[in-house]
């Protein structure tokens, strides 16, 4: 600062503090400002005064009320407004996730897989329990081809798959191969029960069964394996040995983690999957052939007496009081995306689900993709289990 303060004598008189301050604060009209500027251009003393006053103003504490800046903060510097775009972004992201989770592509894929086993399990449970190759074996194909594929997979040493051949014509192995997966105990359990009229009833149970049920199921499965082995013996001896080997492997896997439960039909065999109903009750009902009011294919259905429930690919539930002739939409009372509807299974203690007993009970269960189960007696009013 001392460098700027130069001892010079100015004979001219100087503008007063009022004018210099008004010049600094830009409060002067243009002619007077030009006059002051002309003076300080030639007067080092006033120039120094102006610079020092300006320096003091710049170093003044901002917390003083009199020096509070009067200019408004620009809107783009207001950080409070950052919440608006942040909230909008979060909303968009949430909607995107929701739409992605409700995307119909998953349901359509499930619908394509439905005719094979007449099962429309949750996508998550399927992916947890079945290897891709195993699912490909369960694709809709002639039984012979399926048997070959199962044999090939067995030869390849797939640890998770075992093909069971029902006693059918010419020893063909059905596509209803039971895939025993070494999944963990948390994996949903799949119970396959044949119907009373030789139809299999497939019920997905998302909750793991207790060990006693697993032992009973293993005994039944061994008997079924014996029946299947005898049928295979009539057609091909070598193939039978492989099936038994695979069955033994499957039994070991099931004993470790009982995830699949199969109840053989009363006649000791499996019916072709195309004619197997989705739920108990004895009525023939194909979900894909049912025409629902939504226009989408049914991925799951259940029948109790003459009341029939159907679940389409979008997760909408429909009820029919006249065995599928007319349908009514059921308002969604459950949370999440419904993936399965079924007749309430028999009470604990029964190793397998008996369709007729379920039909007599008349209660329905609806399973969401988060494995939550909702109950309803009439199919219209639902409550969480």
């Amino acid at each position, binding site marked *: 600062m001392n460098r700027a303060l130069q001892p010079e004598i100015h004979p001219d008189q100087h503008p007063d503090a009022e004018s210099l301050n*008004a010049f600094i604060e830009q409060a002067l009209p243009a002619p007077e400002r030009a006059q002051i500027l002309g003076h300080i251009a*030639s007067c080092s003393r006033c120039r120094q005064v102006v*610079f020092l006053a300006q320096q003091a103003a710049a170093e003044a504490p901002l917390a003083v009320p009199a020096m509070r800046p009067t200019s408004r903060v620009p809107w783009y510097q207001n950080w409070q407004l950052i919440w608006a775009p942040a909230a909008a972004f979060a909303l968009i992201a949430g909607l995107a996730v929701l739409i992605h989770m409700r995307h119909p592509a998953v349901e359509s894929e499930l619908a394509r897989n439905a005719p094979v086993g007449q099962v429309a399990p949750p996508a998550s449970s399927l992916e947890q329990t079945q290897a891709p190759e195993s699912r490909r074996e369960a694709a809709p194909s002639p039984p012979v081809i399926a048997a070959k594929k199962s044999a090939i997979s067995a030869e390849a040493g797939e640890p998770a798959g075992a093909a069971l051949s029902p006693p059918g014509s010419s020893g063909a192995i059905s596509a209803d191969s039971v895939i025993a997966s070494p999944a963990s105990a948390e994996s949903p359990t799949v119970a396959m029960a044949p119907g009373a009229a030789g139809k299999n009833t497939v019920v997905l149970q998302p909750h793991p069964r207790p060990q006693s049920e697993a032992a009973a199921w293993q005994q039944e499965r061994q008997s079924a394996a014996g029946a299947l082995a005898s049928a295979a013996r009539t057609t091909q001896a070598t193939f039978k040995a492989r099936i038994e080997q695979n069955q033994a492997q499957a039994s070991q896997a099931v004993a470790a983690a009982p995830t699949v439960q199969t109840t053989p039909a009363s006649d000791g065999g499996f019916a072709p999957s195309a004619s197997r109903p989705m739920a108990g009750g004895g009525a023939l009902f194909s979900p894909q052939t049912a025409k629902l009011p939504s226009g989408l294919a049914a991925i799951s259905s259940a029948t109790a007496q003459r009341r029939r429930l159907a679940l389409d690919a979008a997760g909408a539930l429909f009820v029919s009081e006249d065995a599928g002739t007319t349908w009514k939409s059921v308002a969604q009372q459950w949370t999440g995306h419904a993936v399965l509807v079924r007749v309430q299974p028999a009470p604990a203690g029964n190793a397998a689900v008996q369709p007729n007993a379920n039909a007599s009970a008349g209660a329905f269960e609806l399973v969401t993709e988060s494995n939550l189960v909702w109950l309803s007696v009439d199919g219209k009013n639902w409550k969480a289990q």
Partner: protein
Amino acid sequence: MTPAQPVENLSAAAIPAVPPAVHPALLEELWRQCDAASWGLTRTEFNQIFVAAQRFGLPPEAVTCQQQQAWFASLKLNDLVLAQACAAGNERAWVSFIALYEQQLIHAAVAITGNDTVGRDLAGQLYAELYGLTEREGQRRSPLASYKGRGSLIGWLRTTLAQRHVDHFRRSRREEPIEDYDAPATEAEAAPGPAELLPLAGAVERALRGEPPEVRFLLASYYLDGRTLAEIACVIRVHEATVSRKLQCAIDGLRKQVLKNLESAGLSRRAAREALGADPRDLDMNLKNLLQNPPSETFQERVAL
């Protein structure tokens, strides 16, 4: 000790008895706006303040209420009323003044002097002056009476502090021993330079004197005072880049004007360009005097002291 005399005595002694030119309705509105009652002013004192303020700058052509209202709207009325009330010796106004400006005054003085002790001394001296310790013609006068509200009161205080500091520094520097005083050398008789340098000095002098005030301010601030672009930009309220650009334009314009002056003095363009390449130290001219002592208008110091 009491501060400077009350408003009634001050106005009776210093202000001629002229009828108040301020419109009564406007005066009533200003009374409400300024909230002068909170400072202990009576309505009579308030009216007297604006009678005095009218003398400070109310244009004579502002006769209508709207014109006067527009003029008063350009003033810092709150600061003006407070300063005038303090100058008149109103105790409640002084309490408000101390509460508002005492610390700011000290901060500004420290910032101006660059030293805490010197700054507090400077602020104390100014505070004593503002309180009215100085007497003139037997009456205590306060510099606050000269405040007319064109700028903020704190800005006026800063400028007053800067004036006091610069004046004190210049006086004290002149009192220093001669060996420490870096006085400018007396202008010795310059040796006659080459013939071509004489028209160059005249051309430069004419070019500098013909520059507008802003250009001369920029040149003096940057080259003579050594101010930075940021400091200059703060004063003229433009960006640093603008100051730099203006400086460059000023130098280019000066160069062209010097060339033109040389050509008008009879030199050819080539000779003029060669003359511009001469060493400035060979020129017999004082650029500081050229920049700082033009035949400009003078100002009347209207400080109350």
